[in-house]
């Protein structure tokens, strides 16, 4: 290819100034961009309004497409299901008998739990859902893991509320528009969830890796304590996430931590439920002493 057209616009003063001004504007604009990043760093909630406006506008497109994608994806799976129907049927039947036995045990445990709680006088925290909505799109080209939920402030969603699916925790709301909300998934690298191991209540911290997996670190650093297959649920420590929501299952154990897979797959989610922020019952806040000199 011949060399591209020379960008020098000839002898016209005006055109030369125009080109120069273009460069000045570009450099100043780049600095403005840097400034905006710094303000986003200092005040993360500052830029929400304008971004929420865009997501409110584009959300109908995503939701409409999403339902059609779900339909085609489901039909593909339905065909594949037939291939090993026989062996799967036998395996499922076996699983069902085990599950039924477990269910009876669980009912007994639940009953005992309720009885003990009544004895202790513990009131269940209100866990009624605020709204059920679909996840419509996500930040697929960014290194952060956000998803758009098609419910917003008109449905009673506010920032900080946890979001869960039927299988487990999905994330928490970080930005709200009128009809949409941006959800930070638990796989995002900036998200931290306090969890406990189901079997023995070993406390741990779950952090997203940004690539679909979750890093689990034990709070008690006593060598390698995790095994593949360990299931983690939210502990409720520190509020925000209500306790007893399934979070992740460990895949590989390494050092004093484990690599885990989230139990709720946001890509296959039918509906996600927004829950109210969990406020743990703590001891009464200390009463401020009366100021001196007021009497």
């Amino acid at each position, binding site marked *: 290819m011949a060399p591209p057209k020379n960008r020098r616009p000839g002898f016209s003063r005006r055109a030369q100034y125009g080109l120069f001004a273009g460069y000045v504007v570009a450099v100043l604009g*780049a600095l403005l961009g840097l400034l905006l990043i710094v303000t986003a760093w200092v005040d993360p909630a500052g830029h929400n309004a304008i971004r929420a406006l865009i997501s409110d506008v584009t959300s109908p497109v995503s939701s409409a497409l999403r339902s059609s994608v779900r339909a085609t994806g489901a039909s593909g799976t339905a065909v594949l299901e037939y291939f090993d129907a026989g062996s799967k049927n036998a395996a499922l039947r076996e699983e069902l008998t085990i599950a039924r036995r477990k269910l009876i045990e669980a009912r007994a445990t639940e009953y005992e739990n309720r009885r003990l709680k009544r004895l202790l006088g513990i009131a269940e925290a209100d866990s009624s859902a605020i709204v059920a909505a679909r996840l419509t799109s996500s*930040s697929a080209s960014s290194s*952060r893991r956000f998803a758009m939920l098609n419910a917003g402030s008109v449905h009673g969603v506010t920032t900080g509320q946890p979001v869960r699916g039927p299988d487990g925790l999905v994330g928490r709301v970080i930005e709200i528009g009128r009809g949409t909300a941006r959800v930070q998934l638990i796989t995002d690298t900036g998200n931290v969830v306090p969890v406990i191991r189901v079997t023995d209540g070993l406390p741990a911290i779950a952090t997203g890796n940004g690539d*679909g997996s979750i890093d689990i670190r034990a709070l008690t650093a006593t060598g390698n304590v995790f095994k593949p297959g360990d299931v983690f649920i939210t502990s409720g420590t520190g509020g925000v996430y209500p306790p007893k929501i399934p979070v992740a299952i460990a895949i590989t154990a390494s050092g004093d931590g484990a690599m885990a897979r989230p139990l709720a797959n946001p890509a296959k989610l039918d509906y996600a439920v927004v829950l109210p922020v969990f406020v743990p019952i703590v001891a009464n806040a200390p009463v401020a002493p009366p100021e001196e000199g007021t009497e």
Partner: protein
Amino acid sequence: MSPRIRSDGEERIARLRGTTLPVISTMLGSATVILPIIATTPLLPPFGFLMLLAWRLLRPELWPVWIGLPLGLVDDLFSGQPIGSGMLLWTLALLGIDLADRRMVWRDYWQDWLIAAAATILCLIGGLVTANATGGNGTVLQIVPQMILSVLIFPAVARFCALLDRWRLS
């Protein structure tokens, strides 16, 4: 005047298409993230940026150098990156390509691809840095697949861009 244009109204439409098509196609590239994919890894190539590169390399005289600011801002509004990230990185990329243009005399397809690949990789790393500055904690390793995919898909985007260009000027 092209034989296909028969009236003043048609000419006006053709001129409007000539000036707005590159901008609109780039913004649509940025808007690919509203596709209903719930991604667990950053894998979707930054189509807005690839369209910008393709237009810039195909028609160097088409846009002033500050075009990265408005288009980058639109991309930030869609992508989930902090606002300002695209404005900064896209403008830096365009300035960098201007510099490269001054150095290189003869250019062909392979050099265009090389320039686009370098710009894409640097822009993705820059995007990771800005995302990390505002609360993320990602590693470079995790965007390597996205880099490879973006570089490999660039020729297709450039081809599509050339197709649009032919329609734009018809």
